[in-house]
């Protein structure tokens, strides 16, 4: 699609305070970005990695830690692992991708062990590799990224992509917010590993995740897919940020009066909790964990207990109020569409990995939280880095390239009224947080919400660039807005309930919708149905 908003501003004067020229630029320094950077460097590329925060502490994994879809290469166990979530995912997964992710995750996890990650060992002496402690894992990944020769730019959010005269992605530009200046990195290939979008909901570690990579990519014409599978909400204490839902499988849920809420549970009964929260406060108590389980919980996820130990609550014997925080595409499935085994996007020179890329291939329409997302970050990171290094090698010398900037919203001179980031972000939150809009979807309500969101967009698109110190916030708000519009247009297009996407007006799964929904566009958001890849293969074979 052509993009009428494009600035196509030539990159000549005032390029930035820091200007670098490399083979591969990785945006984002979570697990996907660090694996991509290491992989690109190991495939011979000169690599820069730029992170909005600090590579090593920033992003969802660093703060939280993850279960990992790590399965021993025993055929029956692999078969079982692939089959177990196919129904939940609404049969949208691709077995070939699942198998290659299982293989790659196995290899990467074992490399972590070689690098000294302190995996626990069970009673039988066998190392257990299906869980990673976030701070520990990401501290190691930062160290290995540096050792691989990658230049890391911390506190250096990317604001926009650069493209050459042929539309090939040619780098990115951003801020160095602790120095108050700008950076420009020209590159032969770029990997987007900026994570998902959790809409500043304060879900653990996720306020850096505002969908920036989607917006940057869409401004160069990239497609997204499965954006309707983005309504992940997680349980946390009402006052706190720690959204770890696993432990609530030992919880009982009660209302104000202390009566049990029938059907409420962390798995398979979260919508009951959402409904109950609309009526009044909901309380949880982890009263189904015996003392041995309690001990395992404490040592496995120490940060789960911080909100309790610091407020004097014993979660095993006392009730505490809970809420559901929106995690959007951080634990949902939607993201940039990838078109080949190297995790290339639809735009030449642009690759995607981790939460920024679609996980439909291995999760279908269900959340990839709990294990699949972490496996995907490692695997897609590895492939995207390799693919980007290969693309850079093939491109050869680029000294004659005419490079221009692709940033749109929040960059232009506009109507004189500067974009108000805080107000816009709150406006978007008002459309995506409410359970009645996002959790329980229905054509009328989605349509109304989209009208308001489209209104925000026209306003933002006409607005003038804000002051330098508000630019990052403005771009984040614009990215959240674009994400919300792709989510809801896709949700309207899927007139059924499948995976995590629930329609009040179409409560059943409908065979006619066993396809993917692709979306994209900025001023005009479009959607289209796309057949499953394996369906295409079988057609070709006929």
């Amino acid at each position, binding site marked *: 699609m052509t993009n009428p908003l494009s600035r196509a501003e030539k990159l000549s004067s005032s390029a930035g305070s820091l200007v670098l020229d490399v083979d591969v630029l990785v945006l984002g320094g979570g697990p996907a970005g660090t694996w991509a950077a290491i992989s690109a460097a190991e495939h011979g590329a000169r690599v820069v990695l730029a992170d909005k925060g*600090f590579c090593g502490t920033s992003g969802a994994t660093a703060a939280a830690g993850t279960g990992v879809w790590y399965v021993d290469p025993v055929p029956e166990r692999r078969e079982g692992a692939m089959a177990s979530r196919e129904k939940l995912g609404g049969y949208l997964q691709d077995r070939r991708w699942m198998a290659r992710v299982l293989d790659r995750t196995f290899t990467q996890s074992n490399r972590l062990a070689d690098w000294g990650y302190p995996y626990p060992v069970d009673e039988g002496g066998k190392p257990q590799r299906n869980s990673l402690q976030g701070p520990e894992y990401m501290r190691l990944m930062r160290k290995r990224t540096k050792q691989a020769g990658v230049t890391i730019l911390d506190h250096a959010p990317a604001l926009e992509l650069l493209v050459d005269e042929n539309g090939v992605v040619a780098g990115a530009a951003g801020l160095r917010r602790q120095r108050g200046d700008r950076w420009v990195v020209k590159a032969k290939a770029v990997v987007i590993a900026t994570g998902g979008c959790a809409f500043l909901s304060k879900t653990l570690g996720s306020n850096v995740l505002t969908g920036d990579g989607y917006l940057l990519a869409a401004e160069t014409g990239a497609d997204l897919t499965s954006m309707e599978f983005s309504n992940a909400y997680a349980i946390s204490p009402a006052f706190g940020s720690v959204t770890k839902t696993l432990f609530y499988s030992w919880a009982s849920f009660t209302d104000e009066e202390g009566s049990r809420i029938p059907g409420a549970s962390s798995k398979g009964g979260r919508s009951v909790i959402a409904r109950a929260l609309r009526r009044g406060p909901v309380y949880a108590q982890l009263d189904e964990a015996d003392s041995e389980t309690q001990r395992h919980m404490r040592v496995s996820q120490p940060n789960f207990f911080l909100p309790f130990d610091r407020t004097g609550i014993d979660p095993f014997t006392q009730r505490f109020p809970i809420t559901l925080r929106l995690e959007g595409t951080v634990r949902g499935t939607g993201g940039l569409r990838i078109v080949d085994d190297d995790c290339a996007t639809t735009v030449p020179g642009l690759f995607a990995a981790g939460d920024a890329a679609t996980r439909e291939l291995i999760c279908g329409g269900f959340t990839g939280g709990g294990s699949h997302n972490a496996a995907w970050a490692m695997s897609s990171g590895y492939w995207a880095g390799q693919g980007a290094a290969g693309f850079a090698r093939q491109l050869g010398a680029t000294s004659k390239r005419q490079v221009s900037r692709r940033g749109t919203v929040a960059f232009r001179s506009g109507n004189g009224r500067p974009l108000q980031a805080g107000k816009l972000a709150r406006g978007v939150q008002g459309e995506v947080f409410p359970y009645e809009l996002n959790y329980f979807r229905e054509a009328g309500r989605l349509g109304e919400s989209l009208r308001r969101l489209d209104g925000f967009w026209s306003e933002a698109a006409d607005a003038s660039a804000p002051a330098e110190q508000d630019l990052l916030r403005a771009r984040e708000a614009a990215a959240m807005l674009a994400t919300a519009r792709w989510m809801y247009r896709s949700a309207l297009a899927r007139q059924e309930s499948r995976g995590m996407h629930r329609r009040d007006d179409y409560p059943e799964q409908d065979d006619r919708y066993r396809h993917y929904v692709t979306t994209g566009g900025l001023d005009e958001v479009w959607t289209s149905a796309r057949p499953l890849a394996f369906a295409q293969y079988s057609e070709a074979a006929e």
Partner: protein
Amino acid sequence: MIEVIDTERCTACDICVNVCPTNVFDKTDGIPRIARQNDCQTCFLCELYCPEDALFVSPFADAPQEVDVAALKEAALLGSYRRAVGWTDESRQLRTADRSYRLFGH
């Protein structure tokens, strides 16, 4: 949200300024300043990285809280997260204590 930099313990090493993912702190000539408390995402990571146990992050994510530093020290709450994940010399054995594999599949 981040509430406290304990001036008795802080050595002004600026690690917290570097590691905070949402850029809450500012460097000064001495002890860093909590410059943008509202940007704190309550991730507890500054506390984990502070080598002097000089920081305290209150678990209340949406509003600032009054805290009593003396009482926090008394209750050994400063640095408690570091000890729990095995990032202190005395608690190193906890780095391999993860028993998640016993909890999955519940």
